[in-house]
């Protein structure tokens, strides 16, 4: 226990150090104006790509702005797992973050004052198998070991949806929960027969040459959502203009990302940086290109029916125990009033 704690603490200290190192940069790019830096938590996954773009775009507009008025600034705060972001949001040590949609539903129901204010992406999850394996259809995975990040991840709902489509039940496969960064190695070592997770952990193995895509949300569940922008209710009450501005920038980032391939290349260069994902840019670029709609960002509309479908699937999976009304975990007002911010990159 002590060792685990120490390791987590170290990681956190390192992260804080990294954030501190990033801070002067943020302040400089704000042109020295009085700014209100909001930390937004996120994971280094392509489903969260709108966040680095929104942060950098806001800083760029701040640098361009001539007026002396106080403006907003966002800082990407990198986390290494969903539980860590969730706990920081619960404790209020961050006011905003990208979160798993069903987890927010559950938190809002358990009196943690959080609300979903925007989507962050669509699609972007894959089921990977080894290139040399005989599996061609999802049905071939019957009786096999499939890794997922956790039962509370939307990837698990994707897997269940595939099972239902093939008239299979969860008992027909063996589910293993594992941290996504470990999945490519586990597949390589044949510890699992397949894995289902968000990018870039599929692309990492595919690009390395030992894995191929069996199924992707692009073909099976185009409007798939996992990461959503979540804020604490205090922030909504205290500074709705800030939340609106953040939502505008996420929306703007999404439109910008899907507008032109050059934009995506710029986003890859930003996200691969040390202050953001700190990953191989070639792997992120691979996700962007193979095919171009492997993960999409252009349609961030909040649609009630889609959230209720996630709710229904979570109820069936047993990861949420009872129905939670849409209004309890979503605040649509920002998405409704959103105007895509311009991305001066």
């Amino acid at each position: 226990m002590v060792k685990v704690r120490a390791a987590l603490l170290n990681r956190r200290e390192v992260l804080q150090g990294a954030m501190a190192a990033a801070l002067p940069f943020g302040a400089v790019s704000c042109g020295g104006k009085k700014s209100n830096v909001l930390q937004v938590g996120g994971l280094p996954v392509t489903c969260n790509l709108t966040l680095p773009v929104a942060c950098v775009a806001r800083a760029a507009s701040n640098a361009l702005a001539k007026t002396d008025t106080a403006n907003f600034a966002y800082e990407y705060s990198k986390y290494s797992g969903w539980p860590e972001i969730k706990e920081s949001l619960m404790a209020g040590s961050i006011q905003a973050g990208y979160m798993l949609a069903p987890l927010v539903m559950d938190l809002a129901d358990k009196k943690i004052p959080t609300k979903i204010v925007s989507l962050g992406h669509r699609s972007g999850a894959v089921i990977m198998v080894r290139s040399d394996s005989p599996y061609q259809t999802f049905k071939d995975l019957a009786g096999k070991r499939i890794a997922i990040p956790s039962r509370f991840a939307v990837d698990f709902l994707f897997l269940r949806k595939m099972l239902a489509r093939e008239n299979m039940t969860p008992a027909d496969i063996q589910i293993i929960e594992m941290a996504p960064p470990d999945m490519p190695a586990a597949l390589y070592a044949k510890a699992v027969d397949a894995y289902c997770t968000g990018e870039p952990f599929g692309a990492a193995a595919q690009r390395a040459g030992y894995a191929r895509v069996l199924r992707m949300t692009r073909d099976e569940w185009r409007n798939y959502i996992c990461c959503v922008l979540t804020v604490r209710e205090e922030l909504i009450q205290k500074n709705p203009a800030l939340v609106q501005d953040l939502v505008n920038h996420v929306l703007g980032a999404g439109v910008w990302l899907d507008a032109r391939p050059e934009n995506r290349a710029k986003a890859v260069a930003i996200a691969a940086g040390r202050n953001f994902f700190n990953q191989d840019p070639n792997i992120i670029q691979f996700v962007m290109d193979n095919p171009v709609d492997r993960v999409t960002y252009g349609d961030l509309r909040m649609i009630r029916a889609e959230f209720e479908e996630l709710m229904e699937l979570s109820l069936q999976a047993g990861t949420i125990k009872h129905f939670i009304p849409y209004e309890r975990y979503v605040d649509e007002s920002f998405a409704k009033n959103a105007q895509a911010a311009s991305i001066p990159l």
Partner: protein
Amino acid sequence: MNHSAMKRIRALAPSLAVIATLIAAWWVLVAVTQSAIFPTPWQVAAGLYELLRDGTLFEHIGASLFRVGVGFLLAVAFAIPLGLWMGWVAGAYATLNPIFQLLRPISPIAWIPIAILWFGVGNVSPIFLIFISSVFPMIVQTTAGVHSIERRYLRAAENFGVSRYTLFRQVVIPAVWPQIIIGMRIGLGVAWLVVVAAEMIALRSGLGYLIIDSRNAGNRYDLVIAGMIVIGLIGLLLDGVMRLLERHKSVRWRYVR
């Protein structure tokens, strides 16, 4: 009989009082701050009861004890002969000690990706992580035990003209035995300490898995704390068992001052 029981209760009373005070303070603090996250002791007890009732608690305990038991026994089987050899043969010590000192401070968490690559996901990986955590302290303790044998025992034996083999079997091993027992006690403590880290890659069972899974779930910190308490209690019990070994007559001579 009655008298000694009374004495034992009296000896335990202060620590029980501290535990009771801590639990009361925890309860009061949660109630005062009206935390929506931190569970009260009652909620933790309710969570524990929930696990007891559906039988999963014993499954988790059994799985963890199995992994720790196998990992620890493998470490004992590896560490004791190696430690004796390293203590007895200067060349072996000079060759191997730097490597073990290098490997010793590495947290089992750092070994996780390698464990998955080598042993896959199943029972073997957590057992390996437990093994790797507990083997080094036992090697060090055993080696140090051999090094600290009083010279006069060895000289006395030499005066009788015994062979090196007899010297090792009849003088060195009995002389080191108390140190080995201490090493085992430390090793088992470490093995149990790393159960949570080791079970980060476990297949749906174990107390470490219980904690990690409850953390992944929305707001189930009652089960996180319940898991922590169970780990603590079992750790106490395991240490108690190892202490019984220290009372054995073959080693008591060393501890009595």
